[in-house]
């Protein structure tokens, strides 16, 4: 599907269901984070829309447009193309920031919000990781990618992924774009999210500041901690499905 001059890989499950849940993955991973477990379970009741963010999975890489505003615009373009007017929105990690930004900027498009292991890039807890981008970061990232998709990669694949990530960092605006729209949490503090919100974090989360902040400043939010670390969608999908099903 072509949105905002970029080709997007989109996958729909149970298209005939009345209610739609759109699921946004995190940075440097892809829609498979949801596909094998969480999405299949939710698809028994809901129309599920998964897509690869630009520069990720099978979606096209572009030179720019990795900031939250552009990513929200991509999401709105997808909703428009699929003729969806109001959806439940789920976001994992950076995908959660895209979901929150969309809820703040386009509340009329969003029904309920589900936020999984989402950091606040402005709170100092997550920032050093990306700012310290170098070979060490890349190696750590590749390990976490294997963990987050739970599939070990061959040497050839590791090299290819290494090149893709290096390209995103060195030849696109991604690195600087990640730190645009940093006022998102300030806007949330002004109580600009009215949606019922489910906050799902891991017991070993490194985003606990963000979890507590969102719980405090989103009026209708409930916060739950499940067993696992930042890769909780693949470590503990049953817990996630259970929480989402009860929430929706």
């Amino acid at each position: 599907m072509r949105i905002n001059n970029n080709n997007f890989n989109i996958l729909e499950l149970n298209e005939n269901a009345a209610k739609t849940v759109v699921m946004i993955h995190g940075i440097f991973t892809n829609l498979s984070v949801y596909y094998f477990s969480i999405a299949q379970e939710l698809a028994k009741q809901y129309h599920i829309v998964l897509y690869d963010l630009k520069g990720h999975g099978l979606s096209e890489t572009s030179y720019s447009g990795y900031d939250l505003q552009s990513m929200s615009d991509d999401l709105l373009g997808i909703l428009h193309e699929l003729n969806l007017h109001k959806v439940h929105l789920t976001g994992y990690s950076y995908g959660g920031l895209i979901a929150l930004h969309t809820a703040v900027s386009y509340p009329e498009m969003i029904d309920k919000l589900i936020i999984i292991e989402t950091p606040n890039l402005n709170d100092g807890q997550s920032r050093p990781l990306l700012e310290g981008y170098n070979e060490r970061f890349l190696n750590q990232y590749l390990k976490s990618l294997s963990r987050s998709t739970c599939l070990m990669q061959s040497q050839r694949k590791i090299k290819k992924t290494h090149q893709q990530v290096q390209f995103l960092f060195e030849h696109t605006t991604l690195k600087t774009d990640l730190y645009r729209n940093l006022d998102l949490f300030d806007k949330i503090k002004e109580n600009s999210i009215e949606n019922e919100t489910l906050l799902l974090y891991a017991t070993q989360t490194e985003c606990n500041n963000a979890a507590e902040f969102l719980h405090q400043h989103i009026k209708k939010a409930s916060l739950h901690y499940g067993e696992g670390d930042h890769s909780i969608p693949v470590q503990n999908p049953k817990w996630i499905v259970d929480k989402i099903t009860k929430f929706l």
Partner: protein
Amino acid sequence: MDTANLTEKHQSEIVFKQLKKFVEEIIGSDVIEEIGISEESVFTKNLEMDSIEIVSFAEKVKKKYGHEIDFISWISKMDFQELYNLSVGQVVDYIVYRNEN
């Protein structure tokens, strides 16, 4: 070998060819030529497919055989170690014999 076994063997060959075609469409026929594919090939280790490529493969199987089998439900029940070790032959067996092992 009786007629039923012959038919199943023939069906397995047809399904294997179809699955090979799917894999070729995803990772490229040049790669398949280089690394080869057989029923013993494991998607992750031997065919070097990553998660998003396995999703594409699963969607192709669903589209082709979804009216006969619930492939996605089968694959979704696997833990990650099972998914990591999944071979082409296991998928063939599931499609032809509904063999879930």
